[in-house]
């Protein structure tokens, strides 16, 4: 169990004080995949660096299984760090070492005897699917392969927590999916708690159980991925969710602005529903109930999350404002998430 309690971090810079993390409270259960999403500069890296004791919080407590990490130092802190594996956006492998020597590095640091190191490193290389590349150097590998080495290395000391800081941000979409699949597999097989930091809602939807949204150092929203996707409360969250819904669709990919430009009339409304609701004839109900409204379907998308399918449907409503509002009320009653994307 990881618990951030009233955690803040201030930096003093030449331009004065800067609050990178502002009064954060988060609880993460063992074995969970917990997502932290936010734009660049939101304070995500600072937050997890504090978890690993690479940075000390200005105020607050960071508790891992009853130990306050912020109070550790010297060899106790180094011992604690061995229980946390980290993977990074730019992999941070040593180019001077081969794959197997990179994977064995944490074991060298933990003073594990040589034969055991080699054995464990070989197991891990197999786990991440890099057999046959043991003696390659990082410069001979693709981005996805480098990140696999990073993952193997992070797992070397049998950590209980894995922190992934933008680990897929430098990878193409297919490779991103492969790496996310690998993280899911590791989470299940090793019962590892994973903190997944990203600015891509897609990665969160695919892997996480819970998510916290960060903005300017604060956690502005958190909960299960399903709930947050269905009923985003804050504007940042809405942006992330709709980015995810609009950037998923191959050649019909359109940003919100493009949608608005193309369908300037009436109101553009996004419906968000999940499995059971999708089976009800909700849209045809609305059309029947409000015959005065012209309703066109613009686009739709389905997402698989850890808790089931989540769909989105963008509709254009043209007609009397009051009628449109009635229709929206009706949809809400049917427990369909609605969001007005554009209002003429």
């Amino acid at each position, binding site marked *: 169990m990881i618990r951030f309690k009233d955690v803040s971090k201030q930096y003093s810079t030449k331009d004065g004080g800067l609050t990178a993390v502002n009064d954060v409270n988060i609880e993460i259960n063992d074995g969970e995949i917990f997502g932290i999403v936010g734009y660049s500069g939101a304070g995500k890296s600072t937050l997890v660096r504090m978890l690993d004791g690479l940075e000390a919080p200005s105020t607050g407590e960071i508790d891992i299984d009853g130990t306050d990490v912020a109070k550790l130092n010297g060899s106790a802190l180094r011992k604690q*760090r061995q229980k946390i594996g*980290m993977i990074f956006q730019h992999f*941070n492998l040593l180019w001077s070492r081969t794959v197997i020597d990179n994977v064995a590095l944490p074991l060298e640091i933990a003073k594990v005897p040589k034969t055991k190191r080699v054995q464990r490193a070989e197991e891990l290389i197999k786990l991440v699917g890099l057999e046959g590349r043991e003696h390659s150097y990082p410069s001979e590998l693709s981005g996805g392969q480098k990140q696999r080495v990073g993952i193997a290395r992070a797992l070397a000391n049998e950590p209980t927590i894995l922190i992934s800081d933008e680990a897929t941000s430098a990878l193409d979409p297919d490779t991103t999916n492969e790496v996310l699949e690998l993280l899911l597999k590791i989470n299940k097989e090793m019962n590892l708690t994973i903190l997944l930091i990203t600015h891509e809602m897609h990665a969160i939807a695919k892997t996480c159980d819970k998510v916290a949204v960060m903005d300017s150092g604060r956690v502005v929203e958190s909960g299960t991925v399903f709930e947050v996707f269905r009923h985003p409360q804050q504007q940042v969250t809405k942006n992330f969710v709709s980015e995810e819904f609009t950037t998923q669709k191959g050649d019909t990919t359109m940003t919100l602005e493009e949608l608005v430009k193309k369908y300037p009339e009436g109101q553009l409304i996004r419906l968000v529903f999940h499995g059971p609701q999708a089976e009800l004839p909700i849209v045809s109900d609305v059309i029947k109930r409000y015959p005065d409204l012209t309703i066109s379907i613009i686009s739709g998308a389905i997402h698989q999350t850890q808790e089931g399918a989540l769909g989105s449907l963008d509709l254009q409503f043209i007609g009397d404002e009051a009628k449109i509002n009635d229709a929206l009320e009706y949809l809400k009653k049917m427990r369909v998430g609605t969001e007005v994307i554009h209002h003429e």
Partner: protein
Amino acid sequence: MSNTTGLKSYFQFHNVDWSAMMSATWETIWMTLLSMVAVVVFGIILGLILYETRSKSGWGFKVINWVVGLLVNIFRSIPYIILIILLLPVSKTLVGTIIGPKAALPSLIVSAAPFYARMVESYFREVDSGVIEAVESMGATTWGVITKVLLPESKPALIAGATVTTISLIGYTAMAGAIGAGGLGNLVYQEGFQAYNNTVTLVGTVIICLFVFVVQFVGDRFVKWTDKRTL
């Protein structure tokens, strides 16, 4: 002795004492290599001190950084020919003599080590900070970071820098030779200049050039061999 003048004077090979040339060459080679080893060792130690104390808080680190930095800058800026003379008493105390190749070693080391130390510091600063942080997050100590990251990851640069430094050391040994430290510099000064034997000057020049080429070649090879960044 030769009385030839003009361009012909370069090619009077019968006037060359080859055994003296050989022993002068060996003196130059071992003066250079011995001082190179010491320069690399001291340079890396000083470079590490400069690097490690650079951005640490605490006035102890700041004082060390300032003192070492100052000494390095002072000795780096003294022209070598003056430094030898300045260090003559030190040579006398340390190696018991002020003439011969041994006497040149202290001044060779003192002049080149600070030069190399600054290079080493900058190579360490170029090591990817993300990699250092990754290794710290594995629970490495400062010493662990030095031995597992800083030194291996900057090895090609350290070798390239040592090559450049060694080549300038060859130049210094020649200068030291002129004031009695032995080696090719000494031979060329006494035979070539004072005794007007231009052939000795030419042969000495060729040998020094060959030595420089060999050092450069070997250095380049090692750099290529250790650099796994681009394969």
